[in-house]
Structures are given as C-alpha cells and as structure tokens.
C-alpha cells in the first residue's frame, strides 16, 4: 500500500526537477530564473553543511551557475540535474577550500558557529530545543556524516545516489548515515532531558523568589 505512494512522492520531486531542467535545455538562458529558483535554497543548505562560511557558499553557488550558463544547454547530457549541481558545488567548495590561496581563510573547513539564529515558533508550539543549540549539535558531527545526512534526510536521496555524489562506496554511506543519526540522537537526548528537567525548575525558582523580591523592592 505504501509502495505506490513512495514511488509517487519520490518521482514527483524528481519529476519537478526534471521538468525545470528540460525547460532550461529547451529555452536556454530565458528559463534560468526557474532553474535558480528551484535549486538555490537546496544548494545553499547543502553548502552550509560542507563549509561553515556562508559567503563562501554563496560565491561557490554563483560560480557553479555561471559555469552552467557558459555551456550550451543542448549539448549537456545530464540525467539528474540535482545531483549534477550538488557534485559541482561540492567539488568547487572542496577544491577552493583546500587550495593555497584560500588556506588561511578556510583553514578549518567547518567551524562551529556561535551566533544565534532566530526562528519563528512552530505552529503547534513545538519549540522545545532552541535552534542555536540544535545547530551546535549538528556542527559537532563529522563533516562527511553531516553531508550524508543532508542528502539522505533533506533531499531524500538513496544510498546509491549519495555514493555517486560523494564518490564513496554505498555501504560506507549507509554506515555513516546511521552513525550520524545515532550521534545526533545521543547529542540531542542530552539536551532534551536537560531541558525538560530545567524548565520547571526555573519557573519554580522564579516563583519562589518572587515574594522576597517584592518584599525587598517594596522596602526600597
């Protein structure tokens, strides 16, 4: 019963990608805005899971699209446009990050980010763990595990496809996806339990000092 649903969902996303790509192939640069719209966010998030410098990711995406624009779309034989773009971005980021010119700037490919990221509350009021703590936990994953998690979880790639993008064995990919998820779960569990235990305590604490505070304030 689930099988057709899955097939449909999976091909639906791919079908949209494919449609966008075919239109670009047929109409050339005129159809570029559609292509850009379909992929910019995804490429950006993927890039941010490879390196931590956002402006570096933006530069890289810019170059990837420019390279694509320079070529005649009719001569390009691309089976899967999303993995083509992911591979291009990944290669560019890794090449540039490791090259000497950028050595100082990106000595560490991925640095844990400290600043806080704001996010509106979930409509069900599900906001349990602050997003910056979530991000911090994510940053603690090894680089490749984080990359694999994105492709598997967010893009819904299967392990074969991931192994083609990252050019590593698909068994290794499966193993790493599992380990990444396990590690994330462990990391999050720590926070989660801590959080659940502390929230009522804070209320209790503030409630219990309230009368005293009032009393002292009243004195002044």
């Amino acid at each position: 019963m689930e099988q057709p649903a899955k097939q449909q969902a999976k091909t639906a996303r791919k079908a949209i990608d494919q449609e966008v790509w075919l239109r670009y192939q047929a109409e050339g640069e005129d159809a570029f805005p559609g292509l850009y719209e379909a992929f910019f966010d995804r490429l950006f998030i993927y890039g941010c899971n490879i390196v931590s410098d956002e402006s570096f990711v933006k530069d890289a995406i810019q170059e990837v699209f420019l390279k694509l624009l320079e070529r005649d779309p009719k001569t390009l034989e691309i089976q899967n446009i999303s993995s083509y773009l992911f591979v291009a971005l990944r290669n560019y980021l890794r090449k540039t990050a490791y090259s000497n010119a950028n050595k100082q700037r990106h000595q560490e490919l991925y640095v844990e980010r400290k600043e806080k990221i704001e996010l509106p509350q979930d409509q069900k009021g599900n906001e349990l763990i602050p997003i910056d703590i979530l991000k911090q936990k994510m940053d603690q994953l090894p680089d490749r595990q984080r990359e694999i998690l994105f492709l598997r979880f967010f893009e819904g790639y299967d392990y074969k496809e991931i192994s083609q993008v990252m050019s590593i064995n698909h068994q290794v990919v499966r193993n790493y996806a599992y380990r990444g998820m396990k590690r994330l779960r462990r990391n999050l569990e720590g926070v989660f339990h801590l959080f659940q235990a502390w929230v009522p305590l804070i209320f209790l604490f503030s409630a219990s000092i309230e009368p005293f505070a009032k009393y002292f304030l009243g004195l002044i």
Partner: protein
Amino acid sequence: MRLEKYKDFEVEDLALDPDFKGSILRPESRQTDLYTALLERFPEKQVDLSDARQLVFHLERQYQAQRPSAEDKLDVYQNIVQLRQERKSQKSRKPWRLNGWLAVAASFLLLIAGAAWFFTGGFWQENRLYQTTYSEVADYTLPDGTVVSLNANSSLKLMGDWGKAEQREVRLEGEAYFKVTKKEATNAKFVVHTNGPDIEVLGTQFNVNTRAGRTLVMLEEGKIKLISKSSVQEPKIMKERQLADYQAQKKLIRSDIDPAKYKLWLQGYFSVDELSFDEVIAEIERVYGVKVQLEIAVNHDMSIAKGALPTQNLEELILTFETLYNVAIAQEDETLYIR
C-alpha cells in the same frame, strides 16, 4: 503488508526513512497514517517511534533554519546576471589562435615524427619500463603475451632482449599479479627478480609482493621455483595455493591459503589481516604517497583488526580506516593525522 519491513528498524533507521519522514512532516499527504499504523502494529515500540519522530522533527527544523535569506538569494542572482554579461562581452574578444593551415601543417609534422619514432623501434625501446603511480592499478600485456597487473606505486622492468633470448626476465619493485603464457615450442622460462628470492616460472598465475624487507609470493595455479640469493638455501619448488613469506633471514611456507585474499588489490582493496599496524600504515603511505602521523598509541585491538582497505580513493580509505580502527583522521595536504 509493507509494515513488516519496519519490524527490525532501530530509531535511527526510522528517522532516515523517507516514508517515515513524510508521515511526520506532511500529515496531509497519503502517508499520513504510517506513523499511526506503525504504532498499532508494533505497540511495544512506542518509545522508539516517538524518539524517531522527535529526531525527524528536530532535524527538519535545523535544515529549515539554514535556509538562506531572501536578500542572499537576490544578491547571488544579481551577481550571476551581471557577471554573465561581463564574461559574454569578454568572450567576443577571442584569444590568440593557430591559423587554420598552420595548425594542419603542425599536426601533420608531429604525426610523421611520431610514426618515425614508433617504426624505428624507439617506442619499443622506451616502453620497457612499466610503472604505476599512487593509487593507480594497471594491466599490461608483455611482448610474449604474459598479462601483468601492477599494483599502485610499483614498477616492472624488462631485462635483456626479449625478441631473441630463451629466457624472459623481469625485475619487480612493489606488487604484481602475473598470468604467464607458456611457451610450448621453446619452453622458455619466465623469471621474476625481486629484492628477495628470484622466481622461475613455466606457465602459471601468481602474485608477488615486495614490501620493505619482505617478499610475499602467492601461487594460485601451476608451478614455480624460488631461488634465494644466498647460495646456502636450496631452490624451493612451490605448489598451488601456497604462500611463501621471505623476511630478512626467515622463510615461511604456508599451504592451502585462499588466493582471493592476496588478489584483493586487483579489485582495489588490500587485506590488513596478515599485516601489523605499522605495515598497514607503511602500505597506505606507499599506495597513496601520503605521510601518516600517529598521534595516539597503538592498542591491541588495532594490531589484530581484520578487514580490507581501499587503494583507489583516499576519501574512501579515510572513511573505512576510521570505521575499522575506530579512530579519527584529519587530512592536511599530503599528511594524514590519526587521532
């Protein structure tokens, strides 16, 4: 019912499953009831299911938070359009190019020179050394029809004049797998010279691995004779499925080995089973041309680890090595730091 496939799923597998994710994040879709269906089918897994649900929920939020801002999106788009215009106008100024006729004449001359070199025998003379570089495995057919697979960073040199001599002799550095063709008419021997013993062959398939101070010969099929450099030792006839292990003064012969294990490198892997941890490190350095720095102490588990490591892809090697030895590896240029 497809639900059965979730029977042995762990929390992590569930969270990684696209169907499961769909049922959590897109409740309006057709997969709505997967989560509830799983709850009904496996009530004992209620805690796992809810854990997986939490995990999916938090991970999705994390990715959504990473979405770029609208300004970023517009910014990059405008850059692309602008740069595209600039580069287009640059393109119209064409760079220096060979004049059409000049190009034809030049390539014709080159062709003639190449052909002359080929037919006067220069090509054959020069081609007597077969060599592979880091992480490259290559198959060569020697002039007599013998097929040799050369492992990474290895070389095979033809000795003497192969056209006339009765004996076919080669010198090997590194590792190679030989399929020697038998010369029925002349019964010409095939000899492999190594730093260890010399190997004399009639027609057979075998693997030779010359590491620093150690030579391993694995005979898969046929018969070969090992001739030690020191005249004290008698030449040794090896039988099928035997492994000869020559170290400085020692010689060890083992029978009934599994040839596949010693041929793993033909598929792009090498087995660590027979090697000490130091030898594994040395092999990685040899195959990939990298430097390995140990920043941790070698423990017992590491010296008895069993498995195979890839020889073609450094990234895959790092992943597999980390898993096999339970360590972390950091790469800086040509150096791997094991932590």
